[in-house]
């Protein structure tokens, strides 16, 4: 390429570059991306209620909106306890921005060695009335997979053949929860409100044991609730 032509092209390039450098910018953009992930939460719904116990007590009570870590001594479950049932009501509080499933796993270990020891089937269980109240809580219909209060007459009776009291209704005792099993499910719980909103879905988890001529010994009942967003 002839030198004069090169110089001419170079000059044109410089001129255009200069024009671009001095171009007036009058617009600008701010682009933001974000995510809202599924959120499900279980906490204590408040204080535990223990009734019908003999020598028992609430060792670690529930504190509303705090992690659920309740510890209860049910006391005497043998025939010296003349109450109809030893019952513990544990309030649960659930919150979510999506449909949820509350499942439960339970284990019952007893020092007894015979068929008369306390077993999982001797511990009645059910979820009580579900409450969706307060500002920011979405109205929705929840499905209770249990039979409700295990002390209701419809949920148990004395076995005519063995004389042992049995919780007979669907998912009315802990033997139905030896592996993770759904106890409650439903649609989104919270409307679009800040996390500082303290409301949520509350439901009592009801446990009951009928004092009987169980084999003497100590028993530990452990229950774990887990809430998930399917």
């Amino acid at each position, binding site marked *: 390429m002839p030198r004069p032509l090169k110089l001419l092209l170079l000059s044109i390039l410089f001129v255009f570059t200069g024009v671009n450098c*001095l171009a*007036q*910018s*009058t*617009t*600008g*953009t*701010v*682009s*933001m*991306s*974000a*995510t*809202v*992930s*599924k*959120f499900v*939460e279980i906490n204590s719904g408040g204080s535990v209620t223990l009734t019908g116990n003999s020598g028992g007590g609430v060792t670690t009570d529930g504190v509303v909106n705090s992690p659920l870590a309740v510890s209860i001594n049910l006391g005497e479950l043998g025939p010296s306890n003349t109450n109809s049932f030893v019952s513990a009501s544990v309030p649960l509080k659930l*919150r*979510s*921005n*999506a449909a949820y499933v509350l499942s439960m796993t339970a284990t019952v270990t007893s020092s007894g060695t015979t068929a008369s020891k306390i077993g999982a089937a001797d511990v009645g269980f059910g979820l009580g009335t579900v409450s969706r109240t307060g*500002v*920011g809580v*979405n109205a929705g219909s929840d499905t209770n997979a249990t039979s409700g209060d295990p002390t209701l007459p419809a949920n148990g009776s004395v076995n005519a053949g063995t004389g042992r009291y049995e919780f007979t209704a669907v998912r009315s005792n802990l033997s139905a929860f030896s592996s993770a099993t759904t106890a409650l499910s439903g649609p*989104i719980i*919270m*409307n*679009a*409100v*800040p*996390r500082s*909103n303290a*409301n949520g879905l509350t439901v009592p988890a009801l446990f009951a044991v009928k004092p009987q001529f169980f084999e003497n010994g100590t028993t530990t009942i452990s229950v774990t609730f887990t809430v998930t*967003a399917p």
Partner: protein
Amino acid sequence: MSKMRKGFLTALAITTLLMMSAAATFAQTTGSVTMNATVSNFVELTSGGAVTLTGNSGGSIITDGTANSPLAVVVNLGELGPSNTNSFVELSVPLRLRSNVAYQLNMVSSVAGAGATSFSLKDTDVGFGLTPAAARPANLAAGVDTNATPGDPTVGGSTDVNGRWVFAGANSTLGAYAVSGAVLSGPRINKTVAGNSATNLTVPAIFAIKPQFFDPAPAITITAQFTVVAL
């Protein structure tokens, strides 16, 4: 008669000679140069520098602002659901304005990908405001800028009857800017300084979102476009 005629002709000849002499003396002694020029309206918007992102959970600045460069900021605000326990996710974007005339800064915005239920994140859930200085610095042309927003959107605000967070005041959310609208205006910004002068009006644009129980949404996009025009 002929004497009079001769005298008249003589006088005429002398006058003509004098005039010709004078004309010859002043010829080509002045000149002129005429120049045309224009000063056009000049308004300019660029980045005022690095952005500030606070209260985020998992967010980050992807493309930061660079002072005096075209504004093209990209930010990931991160999690906006209740697992983010911060009070607000807040983004401050410095805007840099220059002009030789009265100006108006406009903004148009959009929110996409957040879902369509009443619990989805809406443009009204994205707080917005400008926080210009109370007075211009002395190196700028004197004048008062009019802020059409209420300022920092994290100031004030409260929950409504449904428990949802509401930003305080008019023009305090992107809901007010679904179509282009003025956010700031004022008289000439710069004094008569060179084009490469660094003097400018820097105004932070603040975006804020209150983490809430919004509907899950994996890919929300929020866009704000600013345009400055001469009035």
